[in-house]
């Protein structure tokens, strides 16, 4: 009998081990520091992310299955882990000052962000339904707590409770799908499932049911219509930095596992799930964009806009070609930068006594701070998909993949949706540039870490927008071993 694990297996999971250790160190550090010096915990968290990144680089060469197929260490995993670490770093940067503005300057916040990141990394790396589910719950549990971090704020409580209830419900659906898949294939290992199903009669209705349940379960996590109902309330109530995290972290991780399960475990059912995702994609982008128009709260507007973006992302999966999947990865990278950037701007407006989350609060920003207004404008242009921003490049490749795969109608619907989205993104720009600032004039709440996050996001979006080659190449290489 072979040993349960060897030193190579430990090498493979070293990034997760480093990050978990960092999170535990943060928890201890929190006790040692006097109150008011909690930002140190955040900076230590950034160090932990840096160390994890180093471990990721060191373990990148170990290309193997670890822990009897539970854990896959391949370029796909590497790509997602890199963007998860990027997310965690950006979120910590935008939270450092915001937490003290909101009066919830607690060290556990940073530890929970890191724990959620560990969960996401495990999700992306899992080669088995079981480790996938455990990673998903680690991520979700941390984010439930983060969403309710403003304990005295009723809306934050409501957000946490809604997110928790819907999360639990969706986990149930997901598990039902997994159970059926396990029963039909006799294994929880994704590759083994694929092998068994390849030899089976695919017209089994139970198999279709399993696929639908899995799609619905993941659909809740990435918030496709009609599983999006909880999202605007949860986004509005949660602390803005957590909203930024919720809008990118679980979505990116959700796409990682969605791609993994559908491409690795049930590619034999591609004929049926393409139809399913086609419908979901059209519904998601249309409902997201149309409802976003009516929003007055910028967090709610960005929530619906993020729903619409999921619709665009699903187009890549419908196309199903290597081009489509690599376009999804590129899109996710750009989406993370521009969405975190937009939420960081909301945080910039948030001050003591004012949440700054109404679109009206952006009035006259161009007079007050032309640089801040220009920054927000770039994020909005990127979200809408206007060149020369990364948002344009990402949409271009996703829609292009759809046309190449023969889904011209889908691409047309997506372009029409992009035009609709321009309306509500540009309304924010209009408010910033055309409206007078209401008196009395209030100061922004800038901070150096927030500026760093904004700078990273802006630079990333512009570099990808002007020179997308290397990034698309990276996404392309990341597919090795998946397709």
């Amino acid at each position, binding site marked *: 009998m072979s040993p349960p694990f060897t030193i190579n297996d430990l090498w493979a999971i070293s990034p997760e081990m480093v990050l978990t250790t960092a999170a535990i160190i943060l928890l201890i550090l929190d006790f040692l520091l006097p109150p008011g010096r909690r930002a140190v915990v955040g900076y230590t968290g950034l160090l932990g992310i840096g160390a994890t990144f180093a471990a990721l680089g060191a373990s990148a060469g170990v290309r193997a299955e670890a822990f009897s197929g*539970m854990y896959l260490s391949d370029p796909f995993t590497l790509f997602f882990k890199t963007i998860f670490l990027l997310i965690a770093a950006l979120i910590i940067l935008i939270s450092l000052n915001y937490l003290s503005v909101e009066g919830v300057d607690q060290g556990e916040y940073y530890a929970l962000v890191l724990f959620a990141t560990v969960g996401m990394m495990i999700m992306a790396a899992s080669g088995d339904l079981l480790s996938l589910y455990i990673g998903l719950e680690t991520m979700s549990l941390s984010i439930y707590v983060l969403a309710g971090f403003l304990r005295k704020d009723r809306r934050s409580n409501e957000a946490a409770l809604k997110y928790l209830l819907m999360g639990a419900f969706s986990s149930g659906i997901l598990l039902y799908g997994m159970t059926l898949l396990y029963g039909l294939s006799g294994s929880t290992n994704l590759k083994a499932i694929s092998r068994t199903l390849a030899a089976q009669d695919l017209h089994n209705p139970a198999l279709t*049911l399993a696929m639908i349940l899995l799609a619905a379960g993941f659909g809740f996590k990435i918030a496709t219509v009609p599983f999006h109902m909880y999202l605007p309330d949860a986004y509005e109530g949660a602390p803005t930095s957590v909203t930024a995290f919720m809008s990118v972290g679980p979505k990116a991780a959700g796409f990682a596992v969605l791609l993994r399960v559908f491409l690795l475990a049930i590619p034999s059912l591609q004929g049926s799930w393409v139809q399913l995702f086609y419908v979901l994609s059209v519904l998601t982008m249309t409902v997201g964009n149309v409802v976003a128009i009516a929003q007055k709260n910028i967090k709610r507007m960005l929530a619906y806009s993020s729903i619409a973006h999921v619709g665009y992302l699903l187009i890549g999966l419908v196309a199903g070609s290597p081009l489509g999947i690599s376009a999804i990865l590129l899109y996710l990278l750009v989406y993370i930068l521009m969405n975190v950037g937009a939420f960081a701007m909301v945080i910039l407006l948030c001050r003591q006594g004012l949440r700054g989350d109404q679109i009206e609060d952006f009035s006259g920003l161009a007079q007050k701070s032309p640089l801040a207004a220009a920054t927000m404008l770039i994020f909005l242009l990127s979200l809408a998909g206007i060149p020369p921003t990364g948002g344009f490049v990402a949409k271009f490749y996703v829609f292009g993949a759809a046309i190449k795969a023969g889904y011209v109608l889908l691409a047309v619907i997506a372009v029409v949706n992009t035009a609709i989205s321009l309306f509500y993104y540009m309304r924010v720009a209009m408010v910033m540039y055309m409206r007078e600032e209401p008196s009395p004039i209030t100061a922004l709440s800038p901070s150096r870490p927030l500026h760093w996050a904004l700078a990273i996001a802006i630079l990333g979006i512009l570099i990808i927008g002007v020179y997308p080659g290397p990034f698309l190449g990276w996404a392309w290489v990341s597919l090795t071993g998946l397709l």
Partner: protein
Amino acid sequence: MELGLFIVLALVAMASAIAVIIQRNPVYSALYLILTFLSLAGLYLQLQAQFIAAIQVIVYAGAIMVLFLFVIMLLDLRKEEQRAVKGGYQLLIGLLLAAILLGELGLVFGGGVLKGVPGEFSPEKVSALGNTQVVGRLLFTDFLLPFELTSVILLVAIVGAIVLAKRRLD
């Protein structure tokens, strides 16, 4: 005999599960949930999974439900109890959708006994090796990673509970 026992256990499990959600009094709901767990344990026994059945009774019906009851009794729920169920149309739509789902499930499973693919561990092999041994060995070999990862989940749960519940000292 075996089929009869299965039907009885399955019916009790389903009826008590429905009772959990339609009871107004949360204490009754919790007690019905214990009944559901017990009948599930019976079903596990029928599948020759004695260890899982025992764990089901000890951990779920025992430990977890006692905690549930503690929490329910600590909270003052009398006000909640009196509140009428709002949103009649929501209930109607919910029931309609549930009926559709049930119909779909009926279509899928009504065609006859669903044939699964047997895994590596057949009942004969399990009884030869010993039920507990098989579970234990798998947990510490093939499923070692998820098993260890659950400790991270537990840590997150503890930290989360403290963050949400603790009183500020300053």
